[in-house]
């Protein structure tokens, strides 16, 4: 993490920082404020063997499965949502064994990220008792060493290689601002080894100085940023735009050429084509 250097780079260069085999915590939830232009760029660059770490992935994990870019996932709930139901290419990738799932509760995934963020090897997590998930994942209980008699599940540390955050605005130095819910972006940005950001636009440094309380991630935690207007398409980015439902519907068609056409329709691809 560097101070004061120029951090704003083209999307292709941002995605190029992610090697094959990386684990990626992706911001947002379902079709909302996900780093979707970034994910498509990874696919265009032919990335392989990726891991998604996200409490509620949807379109992002589905398209990575569809492109054959994913081998592993840690997730709590996976769906397209918004009436589109299950994420079909993800579903097939799991059913066929092409992708290995570590199934979580959303909060157990958060607990693993907290362990990384807090610098400890594991994190106690409430609930979970009675679920089959611990047996699946080898999670162990720890007795309260202070004699309350409570036993609590310990979730092992989860430290993604990257957190990729889709933001509304960044400062020129890479401070990150998000409107509406921050989902799990804060803990992702504190647990990953490296933080990459895609933002709609640059806002003046002065606006960050006026309201520093609104900054979700300070610049010194951010390695690099790309500016991609409409970069969360076909998802929403509050308050700038809503889900493009026809585009998602078109994506859902299981026909040859659909993926390529969808990738070509991404705002980042159309932007690049003009260059």
């Amino acid at each position, binding site marked *: 993490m560097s101070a004061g250097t120029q951090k704003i780079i083209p999307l292709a260069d941002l995605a190029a920082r992610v090697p094959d085999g990386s684990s990626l915590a992706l911001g947002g*939830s379902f079709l909302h404020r996900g780093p979707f232009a970034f994910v498509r760029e990874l696919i265009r660059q032919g990335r392989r063997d990726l891991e998604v770490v996200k409490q*509620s992935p949807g379109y992002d994990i589905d398209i990575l499965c569809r492109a054959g870019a994913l081998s592993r996932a840690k997730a709590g*709930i996976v769906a397209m949502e918004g009436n589109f139901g299950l994420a079909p290419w993800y579903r097939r990738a*799991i059913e066929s064994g092409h992708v290995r799932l570590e199934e979580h509760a959303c909060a157990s995934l958060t607990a693993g990220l907290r362990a990384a963020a807090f610098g400890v090897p594991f994190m106690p997590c409430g609930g979970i008792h009675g679920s089959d998930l611990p047996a699946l994942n080898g999670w162990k209980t720890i007795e309260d060493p202070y004699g309350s008699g409570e036993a609590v599940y310990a979730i092992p540390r989860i430290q993604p290689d990257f957190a990729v955050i889709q933001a509304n605005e960044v400062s020129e130095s890479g401070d990150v601002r998000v409107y509406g819910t921050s989902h799990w972006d804060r803990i992702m940005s504190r647990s990953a080894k490296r933080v990459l950001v895609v933002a709609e636009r640059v806002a003046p440094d002065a606006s960050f100085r006026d309201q520093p309380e609104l900054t979700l991630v300070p610049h010194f935690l951010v390695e690099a940023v790309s500016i991609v207007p409409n970069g969360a398409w076909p998802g929403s980015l509050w308050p700038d735009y809503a*889900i493009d439902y026809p585009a998602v519907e078109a994506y859902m068609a299981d026909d040859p050429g659909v993926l390529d056409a969808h990738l070509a329709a991404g705002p980042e691809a159309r932007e690049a084509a003009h260059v």
Partner: protein
Amino acid sequence: MSEAVSGARGDWSGFSYIVTNLARFVRPNEITFSGVNSALPMLACLLAKRAYPFAFTYINVAGGVDPNPSAVPISSSDPVLAEGSRAIFANEDFYDLCTRGLMDLCFLGAAQVDGLGRTNVSCIGDWHAPRVRLPGGGGGAVMLPTARRAVTWRTEHSRRTLVETLDFVTAAGGMHGVVTPIAVFTKREGRLVLASWHPEASLDEVRDRTGFAFAADGAAPTPPPTPEERAALAALDPEGRFEADAGIRLR
């Protein structure tokens, strides 16, 4: 003419039945939560705000706290659900609220429910070689044991959704209520019991279509929607779009 409107004429659609009966779990002054993939509980919470003469705190997965959304979104995690909110209460916050015991009522999804009120949202068939990979439990495994009351719903009432044996236990713990198009279950002494059935159904039909055994003493036909409940749902879904999308049939 949509079923929502036709519901106002007297018959009670499965859609209206589920939303209304989910709303009836909301209590005064409590904290109630609706999450992702949860259009019906979202509508239930918004209905309760409109139809019931008491205050409660409605928080949702979009970070909203007692929001005034300008539109009812198709996606139950849409950021419009935080519109008009005076605070953003984001994901870490509401999960922590639940694990520390302050979530009064939490709506959680399920694909299968058993007679103990446990849920499967993970898979049909063996987890390691599933016939169908389901979405996963999201909040369930943590929220179901820690919320004061959790309530789920199924849009299909059948022996494949209400089962004797789950294919996988995604979440266990305090499921307090289950609503289907034809029945409302609540929990008593650790097991689901029938609270009421749709006026167009019967106890026999509910038994026939339910995979687990249940007690039904005290159960009766569900009281029909009040004018306030009907009016609230009609206002939330004036075009019947949600009702059509949900595609819920009694049988």
